[in-house]
């Protein structure tokens, strides 16, 4: 698979896919005008990645998600969860700034809906 690097904008996060590291990183803030269109490509990438690699890491460091981005993250995490259910080694690591309850609570919500390994780490 090919590497991918999408730079952050004010309302969309930086997205980096590293095939050698078998890792997808999402970092920044997310409240684009149309979050489904923005993340569609990432859903496809995630589907192909968990198909190809038995081990995969999803690193997330988002300070803010609006509700439609939250919905998109749920879709992305569901793809990871499905792969985990099928026996893949999937790891989610969620970083948040210690004083940002918004990000921490989002992480807790997501973690509670999923069974895959999900670490929440304060920075």
């Amino acid at each position, binding site marked *: 698979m090919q590497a991918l690097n999408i730079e952050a904008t004010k309302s969309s996060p930086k997205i980096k896919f590293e095939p050698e590291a078998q890792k997808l990183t999402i970092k920044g803030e997310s409240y684009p005008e149309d979050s489904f269109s923005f993340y569609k490509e990432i859903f496809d990438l995630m589907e192909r990645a968990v198909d190809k690699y038995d081990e995969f890491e999803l690193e997330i460091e988002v300070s803010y998600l*609006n509700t439609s981005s939250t*919905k998109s993250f749920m879709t992305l995490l569901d793809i990871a969860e499905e792969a985990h259910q099928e026996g893949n080694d999937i790891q989610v690591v969620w970083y948040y700034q210690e004083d940002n309850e*918004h990000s921490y609570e989002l992480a807790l919500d997501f973690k509670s809906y999923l069974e895959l390994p999900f670490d929440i780490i304060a920075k």
Partner: protein
Amino acid sequence: MEEMNILKLRNNLNKYGVIMSFTGPFSQGIIEEIGDALRNYLETKINSKGEIFKVFSIFIEQTQNIKNYAYQLPDKEEQEEILLSGVLNIGFKEGKYFVSSGNMVRSEDVEELKTRLEEIQSYSKKELASAYREILRKNRKVENSGAGLGLIEMARKASEDIVFDFEEIENGYHFFTLTIRI
């Protein structure tokens, strides 16, 4: 033509504790700029990032609600009219920040929206959390899938009941207002 009295307008905004006010069509660029200005302002007033994101998040959801409502209508001209009718106020009154918005809605949509809002109003925080979960867990991979989540998210972050009103304004339209205190 009667001249507009800007001082009166300003005094009225002051009276209600309005810090920032915007009316007109919200483009993504405008939302980002106002959002930045709002956060810069709040950083001088509030220490906690979480609290700042609470106010910011309600601002974002309110503006996106207006846009989503307009864009689901089939007629372009009507979409523009609704977007133009948008008003957004962010303020501080009696120790609490609030975000208050208003926009035109079709009168035929009032009943459904009102029922939804009353339902949300009646929920406890726990019920809000499970309604949030329910919406988030269904309609996977469906476009425009944030629908309905915004209102619940705002109610979850609110420190008081959400306040709303519908007032008939002209042929076939009502003016919908929504206030969230944080």
